[in-house]
């Protein structure tokens, strides 16, 4: 590829070979004048047609591809709402000046933005506009026959010739039989045999591009018909797949809630193990959720792991996170139990230091018999560290030395205030803190089995010996996966066909020479990157010599350098001999056949 090459148009194969090299692929022809003109004289339909031809040209497809990759970049650098809402909030808080600009540019939702969608939609319109005519063209090529031999076979990239005693007709017959046997599409065209092979390349290329469309459709389908929700389940509890049971739920616009797969499951137990020692101490080793699920009445036991979701019909249940749920009992001043249960707490670090809230909504009366609500903010560590300090933290994720610290409040939890409330947080604006007589003044640290007595006969809270674990699951239902996978496999297969199969043409001409012997000429033409073309031609020629055995040359001074002048009708345009150019120099492709140690 020379520099001059890049500024001129492609040297199309047909520059030297006429019709013989035409349509060796179905790539759209570059109508260069088109780009230059497009003047006002075109009229509306003219403009439309011009625009369409631009859009479906290789050059625009290329530019759109480049744009697509460029457009994908900001989404990896700016936090995305779809991935992590919290991070977006943090970013917005940290960059007050950038935020409005980014919001205008839809940088927080790049892959759903107008401009990103525009790029890929244009690309796909271009793709369709490209595939349809290419398919017709290809069908035409399949129905037609390989083009006849060009006049000057010796100008083609690979060429061989010899004289044979066999008659021209005989030689052509033999060539036709040979080429057909080698699975070429071959036919007689005048004094020559024309053959072509490697149509699968085009099939591969077209099916690759069609597969891309199939994949896009599958993705769009998936987005529209998708549902996805999260649910935190404490050991022993269950979940059934209805909308009200979800902690959070998202679905595509065409998804109806009665499309939810009917099933339920219970979390029997959760097991997490961690590296006990070494520099990676605390790194998780296994996470397993043992569940019993039922669909249509039949119970099945199974284990859900991080990489192994539970599949129920169209739905998949993924294990997403886990944590601890200490069991606590709250009693009022008279010793009556007003709350008993496992309280799931949310991990805030890798060693599962967890926080959360315990809310006693009703049933509690203070020592005067007045109805009141209780709230406790909880800090829990599975393996305690921080003795003698104001704060405690966990130093290992397993339950080696669990400690629960509670701060109690009484008053109004404001759960009925109309505002959505986070179950893991306490709104203390209408509550009063219990004054507890401990060293730190606020929270009391408890070991399992210990009880914290609330002041003034307000009751007590017990940290039971039992500590449950919880697991959170994502339940998603997605359609279109099968289609996407089919598309993906077709894409890879098509691509391989497109890149590994060579489409090439071979011509064999046999005519009677001046001296009465038959001159056989063979030539091959492929796309520019054809490495094996000369080898294949040599192979074919060798095979053909079985039926058309070479005879002696008419005596010549230098057989190496002198071109064959086999008669004007065969090679009328004999090129000048060039002795500086060794005949066997692999001009087309030295790289793969050159010797490593040369």
């Amino acid at each position, binding site marked *: 590829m020379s520099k001059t090459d890049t500024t001129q148009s492609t040297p199309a194969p047909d520059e030297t070979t006429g019709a013989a090299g035409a349509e060796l692929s179905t790539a759209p022809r570059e109508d260069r004048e088109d780009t230059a003109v497009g003047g006002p004289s075109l009229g509306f339909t003219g403009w439309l047609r011009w625009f369409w031809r631009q859009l479906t040209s290789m050059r625009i497809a290329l530019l759109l591809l480049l744009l697509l990759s460029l457009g994908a970049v900001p989404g990896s650098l700016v936090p995305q709402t779809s991935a992590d809402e919290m991070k977006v909030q943090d970013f917005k808080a940290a960059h007050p000046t950038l935020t409005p600009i980014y919001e205008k540019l839809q940088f927080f939702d790049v892959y759903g933005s107008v401009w990103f969608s525009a790029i890929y939609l244009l690309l796909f319109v271009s793709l369709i506009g490209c595939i349809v005519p290419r398919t017709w063209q290809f069908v035409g090529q399949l129905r037609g026959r390989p083009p006849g031999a060009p006049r000057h076979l010796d100008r083609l990239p690979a060429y061989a010739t010899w004289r044979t005693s066999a008659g021209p007709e005989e030689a052509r017959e033999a060539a036709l039989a040979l080429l057909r046997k080698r699975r070429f599409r071959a036919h007689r065209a005048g004094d020559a045999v024309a053959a072509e092979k490697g149509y699968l390349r085009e099939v591969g290329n077209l099916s690759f591009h069609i597969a891309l469309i199939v994949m896009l459709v599958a993705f769009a389908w998936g987005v529209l018909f998708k549902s996805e929700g999260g649910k935190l389940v404490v050991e022993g509890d269950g979940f059934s797949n209805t909308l009200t049971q979800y902690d959070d739920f998202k679905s595509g616009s065409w998804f109806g809630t009665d499309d939810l797969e009917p099933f339920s499951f219970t979390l029997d137990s959760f097991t997490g193990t961690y590296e006990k020692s070494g520099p990676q101490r605390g790194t998780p080793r296994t996470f397993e959720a043992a569940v019993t699920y039922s669909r249509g009445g039949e119970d099945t036991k199974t284990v859900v792991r991080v990489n192994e979701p539970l599949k129920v019909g169209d739905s998949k249940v993924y294990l997403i996170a886990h944590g601890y749920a200490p069991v606590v009992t709250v009693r009022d001043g008279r010793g009556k139990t007003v709350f008993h249960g496992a309280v799931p707490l949310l991990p805030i670090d890798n060693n599962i230091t967890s926080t959360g809230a315990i809310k006693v909504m009703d049933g509690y009366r203070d020592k005067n018999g007045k109805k009141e609500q209780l709230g406790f903010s909880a800090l829990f560590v599975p393996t305690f560290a921080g003795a003698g300090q104001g704060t405690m933290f966990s130093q290992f994720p397993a339950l080696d030395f669990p400690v629960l610290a509670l701060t109690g409040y009484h008053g109004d939890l404001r759960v009925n205030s109309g505002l959505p409330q986070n179950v893991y947080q306490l709104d203390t604006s209408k509550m009063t803190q219990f004054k507890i007589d401990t060293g730190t003044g606020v929270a009391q640290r408890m070991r399992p089995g210990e009880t914290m007595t609330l002041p003034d006969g307000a009751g007590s809270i017990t940290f039971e010996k039992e500590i449950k674990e919880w697991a959170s699951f994502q339940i998603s239902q997605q359609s279109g996966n099968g289609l996407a996978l089919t598309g993906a496999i077709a894409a890879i297969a098509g691509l391989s066909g497109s890149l590994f199969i060579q489409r090439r043409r071979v011509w064999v001409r046999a005519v009677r020479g001046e001296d009465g012997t038959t001159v056989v000429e063979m030539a091959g033409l492929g796309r520019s990157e054809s490495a094996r073309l000369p080898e294949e031609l040599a192979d074919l020629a060798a095979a053909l010599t079985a039926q058309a055995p070479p005879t002696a040359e008419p005596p010549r001074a230098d057989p190496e350098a002198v071109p064959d002048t086999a008669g004007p009708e065969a090679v009328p345009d004999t090129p000048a001999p060039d002795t500086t150019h060794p005949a066997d120099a692999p001009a087309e492709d030295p*790289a793969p056949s050159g010797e490593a140690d040369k």
Partner: protein
Amino acid sequence: MILAATTDESLARMSDLLIYSSMAVYTLAFFAHIAEWVLGSRSKVGRTAAALTPRAAAPAAAVTVRVEQGGSTAVLDKPKVVTRTAAGARDVPDGPGAAGGTVKGDLYGRIAVSLTVLAFLVEASGVVTRALSVQRAPWGNMYEFSTTFSTVAVGSYLGFLLAKKNVRWLGLPLVTTVLLDLGLATTWLKTPSDQLVPALDSYWLWIHVSTAIFCGAVFYLGAVATLLYLFRDSYENKLATGGNPGAFARSVLERLPAAASLDKFSYRVNAAIFPLWTFTIIAGAIWAGDAWGRYWGWDAKEVWSFITWVGYAAYLHARATAGWKGRKAAYIALIAFACFLFNYYGVNIFVSSKHSYAGV
């Protein structure tokens, strides 16, 4: 259990030792390559300016089949095939290689290749012992990824040599970057050998990561060829337009293969590996579907794999598009490879991603 742990420890230490030893051998190979280039530069053999003058659309010298004259003992040669380059392409022969045709240079070149083979074997054993010490695929973190990556890159290069491809010119740049890569791996990216976090513990790790490493290694060879193509192409252009390249540039570039050969090599390599790269991304998506409950979430790593993929698709398109062949296509290929590299280093280090749990 304790016994097993100690065996692992010693295997891990052995692996470290092997990696360091391979670095030492690569360093020797590096110097041998330097010697080859230096000695080759002193030679004028095989380097004539005339060899670089375009052969102006060389006409096909027809070669006919020779037979023993009047022979009952006729030896039939295969008909010889004459090849010619497409119209418009510059027809320049390949350079003689780093040794420049000198015997001594060639000797050093051979020594360099032998040392590279040795270093490769040592490094590969290092990777294997690492795998044995952790009893899993050695691709759990960036240290392991880097060591495997350079092993595979060198392995592919040696594979090309074994297949008698003309790739010895890759030797010096490859060994240099392998040393850099190993240097980075053993200092900044060093992670003690250990088990995997549960999310990585899947047979998709074998499939997805191994193909990703292999693709990266081969794309790397393609990128080196592309870069050299750009240099050599400017050099040939300069000569063709009567310019006079600097002495150093001339000495180095004239020994490289012709621009057309380099271009073809990089195209073949990139095109051949592109379907596998497509597969890698799809396998990753399937794995993500199992691990995280969504096939594609535009996570940073996914985004950059996608960008790399589109980049290489653009490169393949550029080569079929008028006005984009040659240098422009080569720039796209280099950008695509830069995206691959960024995905590997940049995303793990600078961008927070769901994928960056693997101890850097």
